[in-house]
Protein backbone atom coordinates (compact mmCIF):
# COMPACT_ATOMS: atom_id res chain seq x y z
CA UNK A 1 0.00 0.00 0.00
CA UNK A 2 1.10 3.52 -0.82
CA UNK A 3 2.10 5.22 2.42
CA UNK A 4 1.23 8.75 1.27
CA UNK A 5 -1.58 10.05 3.48
CA UNK A 6 -1.92 13.37 1.67
CA UNK A 7 -1.08 13.93 -2.00
CA UNK A 8 -1.53 17.33 -3.64
CA UNK A 9 -0.75 18.02 -7.31
CA UNK A 10 -0.97 21.45 -8.93
CA UNK A 11 -3.43 22.84 -6.38
CA UNK A 12 -4.79 26.28 -7.20
CA UNK A 13 -7.32 28.51 -5.50
CA UNK A 14 -8.50 31.83 -6.87
CA UNK A 15 -10.82 34.29 -5.09
CA UNK A 16 -12.11 36.77 -7.64
CA UNK A 17 -8.92 38.65 -8.54
CA UNK A 18 -6.67 37.08 -5.90
CA UNK A 19 -4.63 33.97 -6.55
CA UNK A 20 -4.41 32.59 -3.00
CA UNK A 21 -2.75 29.31 -3.94
CA UNK A 22 -0.85 29.24 -7.22
CA UNK A 23 -0.21 25.60 -8.02
CA UNK A 24 1.40 23.65 -5.18
CA UNK A 25 2.50 20.03 -4.76
CA UNK A 26 2.65 18.32 -1.37
CA UNK A 27 3.10 14.84 -0.06
CA UNK A 28 2.64 13.79 3.55
CA UNK A 29 3.59 10.27 4.57
CA UNK A 30 2.00 8.05 7.17
CA UNK A 31 3.20 8.63 10.73
CA UNK A 32 5.08 11.87 10.14
CA UNK A 33 4.54 15.32 11.59
CA UNK A 34 4.50 17.64 8.62
CA UNK A 35 4.82 21.38 9.23
CA UNK A 36 3.31 23.78 6.74
CA UNK A 37 4.95 27.13 7.29
CA UNK A 38 4.25 30.56 5.95
CA UNK A 39 3.49 34.17 6.83
CA UNK A 40 -0.10 35.34 7.25
CA UNK A 41 -1.91 35.57 3.94
CA UNK A 42 0.48 33.22 2.16
CA UNK A 43 -2.23 30.66 1.35
CA UNK A 44 -1.64 28.46 4.38
CA UNK A 45 -5.15 28.40 5.80
CA UNK A 46 -6.74 28.22 2.36
CA UNK A 47 -4.68 25.10 1.64
CA UNK A 48 -5.43 23.41 4.94
CA UNK A 49 -9.15 24.17 4.61
CA UNK A 50 -9.16 22.58 1.16
CA UNK A 51 -7.49 19.50 2.65
CA UNK A 52 -10.06 19.45 5.49
CA UNK A 53 -12.92 19.60 2.99
CA UNK A 54 -14.15 23.06 4.08
CA UNK A 55 -13.25 24.85 0.87
CA UNK A 56 -13.44 23.93 -2.78
CA UNK A 57 -10.42 24.30 -5.06
CA UNK A 58 -10.14 26.02 -8.40
CA UNK A 59 -7.77 23.51 -9.96
CA UNK A 60 -5.51 20.55 -9.19
CA UNK A 61 -5.71 17.12 -7.63
CA UNK A 62 -6.07 16.46 -3.91
CA UNK A 63 -6.17 13.11 -2.19
CA UNK A 64 -6.42 12.76 1.59
CA UNK A 65 -6.49 9.17 2.89
CA UNK A 66 -7.24 8.12 -0.68
CA UNK A 67 -10.33 10.33 -0.92
CA UNK A 68 -11.00 13.71 -2.51
CA UNK A 69 -11.95 15.85 0.53
CA UNK A 70 -14.28 17.98 -1.59
CA UNK A 71 -16.57 14.93 -1.88
CA UNK A 72 -15.80 13.20 1.38
CA UNK A 73 -18.53 11.76 3.55
CA UNK A 74 -18.85 10.69 7.16
CA UNK A 75 -16.78 7.54 6.59
CA UNK A 76 -13.82 9.80 5.77
CA UNK A 77 -14.58 12.18 8.66
CA UNK A 78 -14.29 9.18 11.00
CA UNK A 79 -10.62 8.94 10.05
CA UNK A 80 -9.70 12.65 10.22
CA UNK A 81 -9.47 15.01 13.21
CA UNK A 82 -9.34 18.80 12.89
CA UNK A 83 -8.09 21.43 15.30
CA UNK A 84 -9.40 24.58 13.66
CA UNK A 85 -7.70 27.93 13.84
CA UNK A 86 -10.52 29.60 15.74
CA UNK A 87 -13.04 27.69 17.77
CA UNK A 88 -14.42 28.23 21.25
CA UNK A 89 -15.43 25.49 23.62
CA UNK A 90 -18.96 24.12 23.42
CA UNK A 91 -20.88 26.68 25.49
CA UNK A 92 -22.34 25.40 28.75
CA UNK A 93 -20.56 22.04 28.76
CA UNK A 94 -17.70 20.78 30.91
CA UNK A 95 -14.55 19.30 29.42
CA UNK A 96 -15.87 15.79 30.03
CA UNK A 97 -19.31 16.59 28.58
CA UNK A 98 -17.75 18.13 25.46
CA UNK A 99 -15.82 14.92 24.91
CA UNK A 100 -18.90 12.78 25.59
CA UNK A 101 -20.86 14.80 23.03
CA UNK A 102 -18.14 14.44 20.39
CA UNK A 103 -17.51 10.76 21.21
CA UNK A 104 -21.13 10.18 20.20
CA UNK A 105 -20.38 11.49 16.69
CA UNK A 106 -17.83 8.78 15.90
CA UNK A 107 -18.01 5.07 15.14
CA UNK A 108 -15.14 3.94 17.35
CA UNK A 109 -14.31 6.72 19.82
CA UNK A 110 -11.33 6.60 22.17
CA UNK A 111 -11.77 6.24 25.90
CA UNK A 112 -12.76 9.62 27.38
CA UNK A 113 -10.66 9.54 30.57
CA UNK A 114 -7.69 8.29 28.61
CA UNK A 115 -8.02 11.18 26.15
CA UNK A 116 -8.39 13.75 28.93
CA UNK A 117 -5.18 12.33 30.42
CA UNK A 118 -3.41 12.49 27.09
CA UNK A 119 -3.85 16.27 26.88
CA UNK A 120 -3.24 16.76 30.60
CA UNK A 121 -6.67 18.11 31.56
CA UNK A 122 -7.42 15.61 34.36
CA UNK A 123 -7.75 18.40 36.93
CA UNK A 124 -10.12 20.35 34.67
CA UNK A 125 -12.41 17.50 33.56
CA UNK A 126 -15.43 18.92 35.40
CA UNK A 127 -14.70 22.57 34.52
CA UNK A 128 -16.88 24.41 32.00
CA UNK A 129 -15.11 24.89 28.69
CA UNK A 130 -15.72 28.65 28.81
CA UNK A 131 -13.75 28.88 32.06
CA UNK A 132 -10.53 27.32 30.75
CA UNK A 133 -7.42 29.38 29.98
CA UNK A 134 -6.38 29.80 26.35
CA UNK A 135 -3.81 27.03 26.57
CA UNK A 136 -6.19 24.64 28.31
CA UNK A 137 -8.90 25.35 25.73
CA UNK A 138 -6.48 24.54 22.96
CA UNK A 139 -5.68 21.24 24.64
CA UNK A 140 -9.42 20.55 24.79
CA UNK A 141 -9.52 21.26 21.03
CA UNK A 142 -6.80 18.65 20.53
CA UNK A 143 -8.71 16.19 22.71
CA UNK A 144 -11.87 16.78 20.64
CA UNK A 145 -9.93 16.17 17.44
CA UNK A 146 -8.50 12.97 18.94
CA UNK A 147 -11.67 11.52 20.45
CA UNK A 148 -12.67 9.77 17.21
CA UNK A 149 -9.27 8.03 17.10
CA UNK A 150 -8.39 9.48 13.66
CA UNK A 151 -5.44 8.42 11.50
CA UNK A 152 -4.73 11.98 10.40
CA UNK A 153 -4.94 15.18 12.44
CA UNK A 154 -4.90 18.74 11.12
CA UNK A 155 -3.59 21.36 13.54
CA UNK A 156 -4.16 24.88 12.23
CA UNK A 157 -1.90 27.31 14.13
CA UNK A 158 -2.34 25.47 17.42
CA UNK A 159 -0.28 27.84 19.60
CA UNK A 160 -0.90 31.30 18.15
CA UNK A 161 -1.13 33.84 20.95
CA UNK A 162 0.22 31.53 23.66
CA UNK A 163 2.68 32.44 26.37
CA UNK A 164 5.92 30.40 26.31
CA UNK A 165 4.92 27.90 28.97
CA UNK A 166 1.53 27.21 27.37
CA UNK A 167 3.34 26.66 24.06
CA UNK A 168 5.74 24.16 25.63
CA UNK A 169 2.78 22.26 27.07
CA UNK A 170 0.98 22.23 23.74
CA UNK A 171 4.14 20.97 22.06
CA UNK A 172 4.44 18.05 24.41
CA UNK A 173 0.82 17.13 23.64
CA UNK A 174 1.51 17.31 19.89
CA UNK A 175 4.70 15.33 20.32
CA UNK A 176 2.59 12.71 22.11
CA UNK A 177 0.56 12.26 18.92
CA UNK A 178 3.69 10.89 17.27
CA UNK A 179 3.85 8.14 19.89
CA UNK A 180 0.25 7.22 18.99
CA UNK A 181 1.32 6.72 15.37
CA UNK A 182 -0.86 9.56 14.08
CA UNK A 183 -0.04 11.53 10.97
CA UNK A 184 -0.08 15.25 11.77
CA UNK A 185 -0.44 18.16 9.37
CA UNK A 186 0.61 21.25 11.32
CA UNK A 187 0.36 24.82 10.10
CA UNK A 188 2.24 27.49 11.96
CA UNK A 189 4.10 30.72 11.52
CA UNK A 190 6.52 29.95 14.33
CA UNK A 191 9.89 28.62 13.22
CA UNK A 192 10.81 27.11 16.56
CA UNK A 193 7.51 25.21 16.57
CA UNK A 194 8.26 23.59 13.24
CA UNK A 195 11.86 22.94 14.23
CA UNK A 196 10.92 21.29 17.52
CA UNK A 197 8.01 19.19 16.34
CA UNK A 198 8.20 18.31 12.71
CA UNK A 199 9.88 15.64 10.61
CA UNK A 200 9.48 17.64 7.42
CA UNK A 201 8.67 21.23 6.57
CA UNK A 202 7.25 22.97 3.52
CA UNK A 203 7.29 26.76 3.30
CA UNK A 204 4.60 28.61 1.38
CA UNK A 205 4.88 32.26 0.36
CA UNK A 206 2.60 34.13 -2.02
CA UNK A 207 0.75 30.93 -2.88
CA UNK A 208 3.75 28.84 -3.93
CA UNK A 209 6.01 26.39 -2.12
CA UNK A 210 9.38 28.12 -1.81
CA UNK A 211 11.20 25.37 0.06
CA UNK A 212 10.74 21.87 1.34
CA UNK A 213 12.93 19.70 3.54
CA UNK A 214 13.73 18.56 7.04
CA UNK A 215 14.34 21.15 9.76
CA UNK A 216 18.08 20.59 9.24
CA UNK A 217 18.20 20.87 5.46
CA UNK A 218 15.41 23.34 4.66
CA UNK A 219 16.37 25.96 2.09
CA UNK A 220 19.91 24.58 1.81
CA UNK A 221 20.50 25.37 5.47
CA UNK A 222 22.94 22.47 5.90
CA UNK A 223 25.19 23.80 3.14
CA UNK A 224 24.98 27.46 4.13
CA UNK A 225 28.01 29.38 5.24
CA UNK A 226 28.69 29.67 8.96
CA UNK A 227 28.95 33.20 10.28
CA UNK A 228 31.81 34.07 12.63
CA UNK A 229 31.25 37.41 14.32
CA UNK A 230 32.97 39.46 17.02
CA UNK A 231 33.63 43.05 18.10
CA UNK A 232 36.73 44.56 16.51
CA UNK A 233 39.37 45.18 19.26
CA UNK A 234 40.34 48.84 19.82
CA UNK A 235 43.00 50.13 17.46
CA UNK A 236 42.59 47.37 14.91
CA UNK A 237 41.52 48.18 11.37
CA UNK A 238 39.29 45.90 9.30
CA UNK A 239 41.98 45.36 6.66
CA UNK A 240 44.46 44.09 9.28
CA UNK A 241 42.35 40.93 9.81
CA UNK A 242 43.65 37.68 8.25
CA UNK A 243 40.26 37.02 6.62
CA UNK A 244 37.98 39.06 4.43
CA UNK A 245 35.30 40.48 6.70
CA UNK A 246 32.61 43.12 6.76
CA UNK A 247 31.38 45.32 9.57
CA UNK A 248 27.79 45.67 10.66
CA UNK A 249 26.42 47.51 13.71
CA UNK A 250 29.85 47.72 15.32
CA UNK A 251 30.45 44.01 14.88
CA UNK A 252 32.62 42.25 12.34
CA UNK A 253 31.27 39.26 10.43
CA UNK A 254 33.08 36.60 8.45
CA UNK A 255 31.15 34.24 6.19
CA UNK A 256 32.93 30.93 6.35
CA UNK A 257 32.56 27.60 4.61
CA UNK A 258 35.48 26.05 6.58
CA UNK A 259 34.70 27.38 10.07
CA UNK A 260 37.27 25.41 12.04
CA UNK A 261 40.21 26.52 9.89
CA UNK A 262 39.02 30.12 9.83
CA UNK A 263 38.55 30.22 13.61
CA UNK A 264 42.09 28.85 14.02
CA UNK A 265 43.48 31.49 11.65
CA UNK A 266 41.71 34.19 13.63
CA UNK A 267 42.91 32.76 16.92
CA UNK A 268 46.55 32.55 15.78
CA UNK A 269 46.37 36.12 14.49
CA UNK A 270 44.84 37.45 17.70
CA UNK A 271 47.17 35.57 20.10
CA UNK A 272 50.24 36.70 18.15
CA UNK A 273 49.16 40.30 18.90
CA UNK A 274 48.22 39.60 22.47
CA UNK A 275 44.56 40.28 21.73
CA UNK A 276 41.43 38.40 22.69
CA UNK A 277 38.01 38.29 21.06
CA UNK A 278 35.82 37.82 24.18
CA UNK A 279 32.43 37.98 22.41
CA UNK A 280 33.24 35.71 19.47
CA UNK A 281 30.18 33.87 18.12
CA UNK A 282 30.23 31.02 15.61
CA UNK A 283 26.82 30.21 14.28
CA UNK A 284 25.03 28.40 11.49
CA UNK A 285 22.00 30.30 10.16
CA UNK A 286 18.93 29.54 12.28
CA UNK A 287 15.78 28.19 10.71
CA UNK A 288 14.36 31.62 11.35
CA UNK A 289 17.08 33.24 9.23
CA UNK A 290 16.37 30.77 6.45
CA UNK A 291 12.66 31.35 6.70
CA UNK A 292 12.93 35.13 6.60
CA UNK A 293 15.16 34.82 3.57
CA UNK A 294 12.69 32.46 1.85
CA UNK A 295 9.57 34.47 2.57
CA UNK A 296 11.04 37.87 1.84
CA UNK A 297 11.38 38.94 5.45
CA UNK A 298 7.82 40.08 6.13
CA UNK A 299 6.50 37.38 8.43
Amino acid at each position, binding site marked *: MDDAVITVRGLQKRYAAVQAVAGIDLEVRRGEIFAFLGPNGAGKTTTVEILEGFRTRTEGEVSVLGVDPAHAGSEWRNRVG*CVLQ*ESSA*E*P*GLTVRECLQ*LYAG*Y*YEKPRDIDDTIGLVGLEAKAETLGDELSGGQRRRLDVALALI*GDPELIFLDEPTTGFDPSARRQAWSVIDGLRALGKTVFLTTHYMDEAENLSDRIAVIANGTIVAEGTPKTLGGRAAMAVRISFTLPDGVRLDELPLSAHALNGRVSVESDKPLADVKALADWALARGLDLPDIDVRRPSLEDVYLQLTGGDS
Partner: protein
Amino acid sequence: MILHQFRYDLLAFLRNRQSRFFTIILPVLFLVIFVSVFGNHDIGPNNVKASTYYVPGLSAMGVIAGSFVNLVISVTAQRESGVLKRRRATPVPAWVLIAGRALTAIVIALSVMTVLLLIGRFGYGVKLPTHTLPGVVVTAVIGAVSFCCLAYALTTVIKNEDAAQPMVQAIMLPLYFISGVFIPNVNLPTWLRDVAQVFPVQHLADGLHHAFDPATHGAGFVWTDIGVLVLWAAVGLAVALWRFTWTPAAATA
Protein backbone atom coordinates in the same frame (compact mmCIF):
# COMPACT_ATOMS: atom_id res chain seq x y z
CA MET B 1 -28.20 10.20 17.58
CA ILE B 2 -30.71 13.04 17.61
CA LEU B 3 -31.40 12.25 21.25
CA HIS B 4 -27.68 12.33 21.99
CA GLN B 5 -27.42 15.83 20.50
CA PHE B 6 -30.68 16.87 22.19
CA ARG B 7 -29.38 15.85 25.62
CA TYR B 8 -26.31 18.07 25.42
CA ASP B 9 -28.09 20.98 23.72
CA LEU B 10 -30.68 20.97 26.50
CA LEU B 11 -27.95 20.83 29.14
CA ALA B 12 -26.19 23.79 27.53
CA PHE B 13 -29.47 25.72 27.43
CA LEU B 14 -30.22 25.10 31.10
CA ARG B 15 -26.74 26.29 32.10
CA ASN B 16 -27.12 29.60 30.25
CA ARG B 17 -28.53 32.28 32.54
CA GLN B 18 -29.40 34.69 29.74
CA SER B 19 -31.40 32.15 27.78
CA ARG B 20 -33.16 30.99 30.95
CA PHE B 21 -34.24 34.56 31.63
CA PHE B 22 -35.42 35.49 28.15
CA THR B 23 -37.08 32.17 27.51
CA ILE B 24 -38.71 31.19 30.79
CA ILE B 25 -38.78 34.13 33.20
CA LEU B 26 -39.83 36.85 30.75
CA PRO B 27 -43.13 35.25 29.60
CA VAL B 28 -44.00 34.46 33.24
CA LEU B 29 -43.24 38.05 34.20
CA PHE B 30 -45.47 39.37 31.43
CA LEU B 31 -48.30 37.07 32.48
CA VAL B 32 -48.17 38.31 36.06
CA ILE B 33 -47.95 41.95 34.98
CA PHE B 34 -50.75 41.87 32.41
CA VAL B 35 -53.16 39.96 34.59
CA SER B 36 -52.42 42.32 37.49
CA VAL B 37 -52.99 45.39 35.31
CA PHE B 38 -56.20 44.22 33.71
CA GLY B 39 -57.49 42.41 36.77
CA ASN B 40 -60.01 39.77 36.12
CA HIS B 41 -62.21 41.93 33.91
CA ASP B 42 -63.70 40.56 30.79
CA ILE B 43 -61.63 41.57 27.78
CA GLY B 44 -60.97 40.61 24.19
CA PRO B 45 -63.21 39.91 21.25
CA ASN B 46 -65.01 37.07 23.00
CA ASN B 47 -65.24 38.76 26.40
CA VAL B 48 -63.27 36.26 28.38
CA LYS B 49 -61.56 36.97 31.68
CA ALA B 50 -58.19 38.71 31.43
CA SER B 51 -56.37 35.69 32.81
CA THR B 52 -58.12 33.36 30.37
CA TYR B 53 -57.08 35.73 27.60
CA TYR B 54 -53.45 36.16 28.66
CA VAL B 55 -52.57 32.55 29.41
CA PRO B 56 -52.90 31.41 25.77
CA GLY B 57 -51.59 34.73 24.40
CA LEU B 58 -48.45 34.60 26.49
CA SER B 59 -48.18 30.87 25.82
CA ALA B 60 -47.68 31.92 22.21
CA MET B 61 -44.91 34.23 23.43
CA GLY B 62 -43.42 31.38 25.45
CA VAL B 63 -43.44 29.09 22.43
CA ILE B 64 -41.76 31.80 20.33
CA ALA B 65 -39.22 32.59 23.04
CA GLY B 66 -38.30 28.92 23.33
CA SER B 67 -38.12 28.13 19.65
CA PHE B 68 -37.36 31.34 17.76
CA VAL B 69 -35.57 33.79 20.07
CA ASN B 70 -33.47 31.17 21.81
CA LEU B 71 -32.54 29.37 18.62
CA VAL B 72 -31.52 32.48 16.65
CA ILE B 73 -29.25 33.68 19.44
CA SER B 74 -27.59 30.37 20.24
CA VAL B 75 -27.14 29.24 16.63
CA THR B 76 -25.64 32.60 15.59
CA ALA B 77 -23.26 32.53 18.56
CA GLN B 78 -22.23 28.93 17.85
CA ARG B 79 -21.66 29.69 14.18
CA GLU B 80 -19.54 32.77 14.88
CA SER B 81 -17.43 31.09 17.56
CA GLY B 82 -16.57 28.20 15.22
CA VAL B 83 -18.50 25.62 17.25
CA LEU B 84 -20.72 24.67 14.31
CA LYS B 85 -17.76 24.44 11.98
CA ARG B 86 -15.93 22.13 14.36
CA ARG B 87 -18.99 19.90 14.64
CA ARG B 88 -19.09 19.73 10.85
CA ALA B 89 -15.49 18.46 10.92
CA THR B 90 -16.84 15.31 12.60
CA PRO B 91 -18.83 12.50 10.93
CA VAL B 92 -22.12 13.68 12.44
CA PRO B 93 -24.68 14.38 9.67
CA ALA B 94 -25.90 17.96 9.36
CA TRP B 95 -29.54 16.97 9.80
CA VAL B 96 -28.78 15.36 13.17
CA LEU B 97 -27.32 18.63 14.46
CA ILE B 98 -30.27 20.64 13.17
CA ALA B 99 -32.93 18.19 14.30
CA GLY B 100 -31.33 17.77 17.72
CA ARG B 101 -31.22 21.53 18.28
CA ALA B 102 -34.75 22.02 16.92
CA LEU B 103 -36.05 19.26 19.17
CA THR B 104 -34.46 21.05 22.13
CA ALA B 105 -36.21 24.27 21.11
CA ILE B 106 -39.57 22.51 20.76
CA VAL B 107 -39.27 20.80 24.14
CA ILE B 108 -38.30 24.10 25.78
CA ALA B 109 -41.20 25.87 24.05
CA LEU B 110 -43.71 23.31 25.28
CA SER B 111 -42.23 23.37 28.78
CA VAL B 112 -42.56 27.15 28.98
CA MET B 113 -46.15 26.84 27.83
CA THR B 114 -46.82 24.20 30.48
CA VAL B 115 -45.38 26.46 33.18
CA LEU B 116 -47.66 29.31 32.03
CA LEU B 117 -50.68 26.99 32.00
CA LEU B 118 -49.93 25.81 35.53
CA ILE B 119 -49.51 29.37 36.79
CA GLY B 120 -52.77 30.30 35.08
CA ARG B 121 -54.55 27.34 36.59
CA PHE B 122 -53.31 27.60 40.15
CA GLY B 123 -52.56 31.32 40.35
CA TYR B 124 -55.54 32.76 38.52
CA GLY B 125 -58.06 29.93 38.36
CA VAL B 126 -58.02 29.70 34.56
CA LYS B 127 -59.93 26.63 33.49
CA LEU B 128 -57.63 24.50 31.41
CA PRO B 129 -59.14 23.25 28.19
CA THR B 130 -59.85 19.54 28.18
CA HIS B 131 -61.73 18.74 25.00
CA THR B 132 -59.66 21.32 23.08
CA LEU B 133 -56.36 19.99 24.46
CA PRO B 134 -55.46 18.33 21.14
CA GLY B 135 -55.90 21.73 19.48
CA VAL B 136 -53.63 23.42 22.05
CA VAL B 137 -50.89 20.82 21.73
CA VAL B 138 -50.98 20.52 17.93
CA THR B 139 -51.08 24.30 17.41
CA ALA B 140 -48.19 24.79 19.84
CA VAL B 141 -46.06 22.06 18.26
CA ILE B 142 -46.67 23.30 14.71
CA GLY B 143 -45.99 26.83 15.92
CA ALA B 144 -42.71 25.74 17.52
CA VAL B 145 -41.58 23.85 14.39
CA SER B 146 -42.52 26.80 12.22
CA PHE B 147 -40.58 29.27 14.39
CA CYS B 148 -37.58 26.91 14.40
CA CYS B 149 -37.51 27.03 10.59
CA LEU B 150 -37.83 30.81 10.68
CA ALA B 151 -35.06 31.00 13.25
CA TYR B 152 -32.65 29.09 11.04
CA ALA B 153 -33.66 31.36 8.15
CA LEU B 154 -33.05 34.53 10.19
CA THR B 155 -29.57 33.45 11.32
CA THR B 156 -28.49 33.60 7.68
CA VAL B 157 -28.86 37.40 7.61
CA ILE B 158 -27.33 38.10 11.04
CA LYS B 159 -23.63 38.80 10.77
CA ASN B 160 -22.58 38.41 14.39
CA GLU B 161 -23.80 37.32 17.78
CA ASP B 162 -24.02 40.86 19.19
CA ALA B 163 -26.65 41.69 16.59
CA ALA B 164 -28.75 38.61 17.31
CA GLN B 165 -30.47 39.64 20.55
CA PRO B 166 -31.51 43.18 19.45
CA MET B 167 -32.54 41.84 16.05
CA VAL B 168 -34.97 39.21 17.37
CA GLN B 169 -36.43 41.58 19.94
CA ALA B 170 -36.88 44.28 17.30
CA ILE B 171 -38.80 41.83 15.15
CA MET B 172 -40.84 40.20 17.88
CA LEU B 173 -41.85 43.08 20.20
CA PRO B 174 -43.97 44.92 17.61
CA LEU B 175 -45.48 41.65 16.48
CA TYR B 176 -46.44 40.73 20.05
CA PHE B 177 -48.23 44.08 20.33
CA ILE B 178 -50.19 43.85 17.10
CA SER B 179 -50.91 40.13 17.24
CA GLY B 180 -53.06 40.03 20.35
CA VAL B 181 -50.32 38.74 22.63
CA PHE B 182 -49.93 41.85 24.81
CA ILE B 183 -53.22 43.64 24.07
CA PRO B 184 -56.43 42.28 22.57
CA ASN B 185 -56.28 43.21 18.90
CA VAL B 186 -59.91 44.43 18.80
CA ASN B 187 -58.37 47.60 20.21
CA LEU B 188 -56.23 48.04 17.09
CA PRO B 189 -57.11 49.93 13.89
CA THR B 190 -58.12 47.69 11.01
CA TRP B 191 -55.02 48.30 8.90
CA LEU B 192 -52.76 47.22 11.76
CA ARG B 193 -54.79 44.07 12.20
CA ASP B 194 -54.41 43.40 8.49
CA VAL B 195 -50.65 43.73 8.83
CA ALA B 196 -50.66 41.32 11.76
CA GLN B 197 -52.63 38.80 9.70
CA VAL B 198 -49.63 38.37 7.41
CA PHE B 199 -47.25 37.28 10.16
CA PRO B 200 -47.14 33.97 12.00
CA VAL B 201 -47.31 35.39 15.55
CA GLN B 202 -50.94 36.41 15.05
CA HIS B 203 -51.90 32.93 13.88
CA LEU B 204 -50.15 31.09 16.69
CA ALA B 205 -51.77 33.39 19.26
CA ASP B 206 -55.16 33.19 17.58
CA GLY B 207 -55.06 29.40 17.38
CA LEU B 208 -54.29 29.17 21.09
CA HIS B 209 -56.86 31.83 22.05
CA HIS B 210 -59.48 29.90 20.19
CA ALA B 211 -58.63 26.65 21.93
CA PHE B 212 -58.80 28.34 25.33
CA ASP B 213 -62.09 30.13 24.73
CA PRO B 214 -64.68 28.44 26.99
CA ALA B 215 -67.24 28.93 24.19
CA THR B 216 -65.26 26.83 21.70
CA HIS B 217 -66.67 23.48 20.73
CA GLY B 218 -64.83 20.63 19.06
CA ALA B 219 -61.12 19.80 19.37
CA GLY B 220 -59.95 23.39 19.13
CA PHE B 221 -58.27 23.39 15.73
CA VAL B 222 -58.27 26.54 13.64
CA TRP B 223 -57.17 25.22 10.27
CA THR B 224 -56.54 28.60 8.67
CA ASP B 225 -54.15 29.53 11.48
CA ILE B 226 -52.39 26.19 11.25
CA GLY B 227 -52.23 26.57 7.49
CA VAL B 228 -50.52 29.97 7.72
CA LEU B 229 -48.02 28.60 10.26
CA VAL B 230 -47.18 25.70 7.94
CA LEU B 231 -46.75 28.13 5.06
CA TRP B 232 -44.31 30.24 7.11
CA ALA B 233 -42.49 27.05 8.11
CA ALA B 234 -42.05 26.22 4.42
CA VAL B 235 -40.73 29.69 3.63
CA GLY B 236 -38.32 29.56 6.58
CA LEU B 237 -37.11 26.10 5.64
CA ALA B 238 -36.53 27.12 2.02
CA VAL B 239 -34.48 30.17 3.02
CA ALA B 240 -32.53 28.13 5.57
CA LEU B 241 -31.73 25.38 3.07
CA TRP B 242 -30.66 27.96 0.52
CA ARG B 243 -28.59 30.25 2.71
CA PHE B 244 -27.60 28.51 5.95
CA THR B 245 -23.84 28.30 6.60
CA TRP B 246 -21.80 26.45 9.21
CA THR B 247 -18.76 28.69 9.07
CA PRO B 248 -18.42 32.12 10.72
CA ALA B 249 -19.76 34.97 8.58
CA ALA B 250 -16.78 37.09 9.65
CA ALA B 251 -14.28 34.61 8.19
CA THR B 252 -15.92 34.22 4.78
CA ALA B 253 -16.22 37.96 4.14
